[in-house]
């Protein structure tokens, strides 16, 4: 066979040349990047809210995991143990969010969310409804951090999702409210009433601080 015609060559290329498919991993990364940058409008939100949440959640989870590990390293200095916990944190988060579940219990009612945790945790996380202040409780789920199941509370402020991880204080690691920024995500950690709180969101620091103040009261 001699290739003479362009059409013949085209057919051969189309039949035989490899079309390299974008790996899912890349799609995930790009979608997360876009989700974090281009804020959807209300109408848009209806259509892609779950997708958007999924990516945002995943981004939050990653950031939170990383931040948590860094913060933990910073506060404790027990490198080896903390590294181990940090990797668990990241792995646990990513797994839970990859299944596109931000919430195990979907409710805007604190009296639904709080009891849901009992029997699943050996402590009762304080759940507050802050909808009058613009922070709407959308649900909760279980997560695993610091070698224990922890409560994750999910709040919504405008189009921003806030994840708050709550579990009992093991030692006096965080006392004062501390803010961190990592990869564009704001994190505020504090402790109150024997519980430590880690709030993470793409929300601006001022609003997140307001949220932390309200929740921490």
């Amino acid at each position, binding site marked *: 066979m001699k290739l003479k015609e362009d059409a013949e060559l085209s057919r051969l290329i189309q039949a*035989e*040349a*490899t079309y390299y*498919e974008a790996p899912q991993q890349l799609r995930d990364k790009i979608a997360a*990047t*876009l*989700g974090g*940058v281009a804020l959807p409008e209300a109408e848009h939100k209806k259509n892609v809210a779950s997708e958007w949440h999924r990516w945002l959640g995943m981004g939050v989870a990653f950031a939170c995991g990383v931040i948590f590990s860094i913060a933990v390293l910073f506060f404790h200095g027990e490198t080896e143990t903390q590294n181990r916990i940090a990797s668990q944190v990241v792995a646990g988060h990513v797994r839970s969010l990859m299944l596109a579940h931000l919430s195990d219990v979907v409710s805007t009612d604190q009296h639904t969310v709080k009891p849901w945790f009992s029997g699943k945790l050996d402590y009762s996380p304080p759940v507050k409804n802050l909808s009058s202040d613009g922070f709407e409780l959308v649900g909760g789920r279980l997560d695993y951090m610091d070698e224990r199941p922890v409560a994750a509370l999910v709040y919504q402020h405008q189009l921003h999702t806030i994840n708050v991880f709550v579990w009992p204080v093991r030692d006096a690691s965080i006392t004062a409210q501390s803010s961190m920024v990592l990869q564009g995500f704001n994190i505020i950690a504090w402790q109150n009433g024997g519980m430590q709180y880690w709030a993470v969101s793409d929300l601006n620091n001022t609003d997140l601080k307001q949220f932390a103040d309200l929740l921490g009261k």
Partner: protein
Amino acid sequence: MNKPSQQFEKAALLHLRAAYNLARWLVRDEHVAQDMVQEAYLRAIKYSSGFNGDDIRPWILGIVRNTCYTWLQSNRSGEAILEFDENLDSDAYHSMNGSMTNNPEALLLSKQEGSRVNAAIAMLAPVFREVLVLRELEGLTYEEIATVAGIPAGTVMSRLARARTMLRAELNKEQQ
């Protein structure tokens, strides 16, 4: 009214497949290609206000293309000359779709054919490789390719003709 950001987001994801294929063909490494696409998308987001909303595909592929060229210039200075690296193309060979037949002999032949075509395209210099990939694998028009590569449509046509001539020569040579 369509918000540019929404439009951009949707379209950008839609063309990710083409973006990756182009990057993968240009840099010929899957990890580098992923990095290129990510970098290009970050740039695209940054400059998305410059996107007028007409046709995002050539625009975004152009950014991917330029990102890849920057990388090629600093990492593969010899890339401008024709080169052929069998190892680089072996994964192309493996990623051929094996579902076309269960006949081992036919499968082997088809793989060899795919590998040969892939290798011959990979041998072309990037400027020829890109027009061929965009034309044959993505089905872009000359005008669209011109936008992507930042060259006149006439140059697209002459490059495409040269690319085909070289490819044909290579394939015919190997077959004898």
